[in-house]
């Protein structure tokens, strides 16, 4: 019998009030400000912007504060907020070749125009806990400077292109389809795959990329180039009739150079994978490039070896941590009626088994 029930209003209110108090923690400890989170937990802010798919450092910091540091919850808050914003338009594609690079490295060429610029990196640190940071009132360390070289930093794939050693990217200005406007359908275009990977869960995309390195759809990647820096965002303003820069975003870009494609008639060439994410998010951008490359097997005429990272339906349907956690976590919400029917069913099945077990013994007794 189905009995409609309601209740829990007071319990929910009290639970939320307690949540707010737990969020604040011990009031003898100073409260975190949004600016502190933005400035001092900037890589968390970057992850929330990349996967929340909305570039706004202050909003991401607010979301992290509200979510008590639960980054997926923070990403959820950002995704929910972005649905309330009217869409003013589409930017022109950003020019990563013009990036003001904080960091730019290549694992394929030692001496390249513009050089190897390490930037503020965790690489080559010893990963030993620094107890000096536990002491408060530390001074901001001096940062070394050197006159900047105004020479451009061309993309590594650009000079491989010159020698025709790497596949060329088709050029054009087609308007790409947009995940946030139309439901994802398969087969997906590369544009949709890249949009989906760029906002996908870092852990998931990392694991998929790692699986290709371990042999599940191996694609022999080299990091041709990894760059982190700021680029201007330009948009055509209809009421003005020309384009203006409407802002500046920090992005991480990774271009991989992968093993060859060729045929009897075509000379072998390197192939490419591409990663581009908001913020300084290099683990994610490298992972994205590897998975992008794995998903390109069909257009490159490779075999489908049945690896998970080659299966776009598998990858794209499971890369979104908001969809995933929404579906996963809904099972903790009341399912009293569903469960009641399961309970009745299992009781009925047990009764049937019991009957069939007792019946033959009765027969034997008779």
């Amino acid at each position: 019998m189905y009995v409609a029930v309601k209740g829990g209003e007071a319990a929910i209110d009290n639970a939320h009030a307690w949540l707010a108090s737990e969020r604040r923690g011990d009031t003898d400890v100073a409260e975190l400000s949004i600016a502190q989170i933005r400035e001092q937990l900037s890589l968390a802010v970057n992850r929330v912007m990349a996967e929340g798919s909305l570039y706004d450092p202050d909003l991401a910091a607010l979301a992290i504060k509200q979510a008590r540091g639960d980054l997926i919850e923070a990403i959820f808050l950002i995704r929910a907020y972005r649905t309330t914003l009217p869409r003013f338009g589409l930017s022109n594609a950003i020019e990563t070749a013009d990036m003001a690079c904080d960091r730019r490295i290549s694992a394929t060429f030692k001496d390249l125009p513009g050089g190897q610029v390490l930037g503020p990196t965790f690489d080559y640190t010893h990963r030993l806990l620094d107890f000096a940071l536990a002491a408060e009132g530390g001074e901001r360390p001096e940062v070394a400077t050197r006159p900047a070289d105004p020479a451009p930093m061309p993309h590594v794939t650009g000079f491989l292109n010159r020698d025709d050693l790497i596949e060329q990217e088709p050029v054009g200005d087609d308007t790409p389809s947009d995940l946030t406007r139309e439901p994802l359908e398969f087969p997906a275009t590369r544009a949709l795959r890249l949009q989906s990977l760029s906002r996908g869960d870092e852990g998931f995309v990392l694991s998929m990329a790692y699986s290709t390195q371990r042999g599940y759809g191996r694609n022999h990647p080299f990091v041709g180039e990894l760059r982190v820096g700021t680029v201007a965002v330009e948009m055509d303003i209809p009421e003005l009739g020309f384009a203006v820069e409407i802002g500046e975003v920090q992005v991480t870009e990774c271009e991989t150079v992968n093993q060859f494609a060729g045929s009897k008639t075509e000379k072998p060439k390197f192939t490419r994978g591409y990663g581009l994410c908001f913020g300084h998010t290099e683990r994610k951008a490298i992972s994205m490039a590897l998975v992008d490359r794995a998903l390109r097997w069909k257009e490159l005429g490779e075999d489908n070896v049945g690896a998970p990272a080659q299966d776009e339906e598998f990858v794209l349907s499971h890369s979104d941590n908001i969809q995933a956690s929404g579906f996963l976590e809904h099972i903790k919400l009341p399912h009293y009626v569903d469960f009641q029917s399961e309970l009745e069913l299992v009781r009925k099945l047990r009764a049937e088994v019991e009957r069939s077990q007792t019946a033959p013994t009765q027969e034997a007794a008779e």
Partner: protein
Amino acid sequence: MTQEWNDRKTWMSLLAKVPVEALALAWDEADLGPDYRWLRRPETGAVMVRGRMGGTGLPFNLGEMTVTRCALELADGGAVGHGYVQGRDKGHAERAALCDALMQTEARGAVVETILTPLATQAAQVKGQRAERAAATKVDFFTMVRGE
């Protein structure tokens, strides 16, 4: 740094990217405060930022950014100013639109002198400082010479 400021795109692009507080300070300093009426009140929305496959290829949607825009008309002379600025600060969009409108009037010189030039200088300094820090992390390779 001398700049011509002939191109509307140049000043609008600068005003879109400057820190909110920096523009507010410079605006107060300039003390221009013209009368105006709204053509479009400030509203915050999103712009879809696009990237290119492989950095140079076909475009794809990277993610959105917040943008605030407005349009206004000066009471004196009727110059129309547009503000399209990064982020969610309505005051920022309003001041950007006022600067844009005033750049089309006789107040242009004051806007250039007290707002645009100092803000452009600041922006160039910030950018220059980051570039200098990056340059200091550029690797100098040394060739190892094997023993004699």
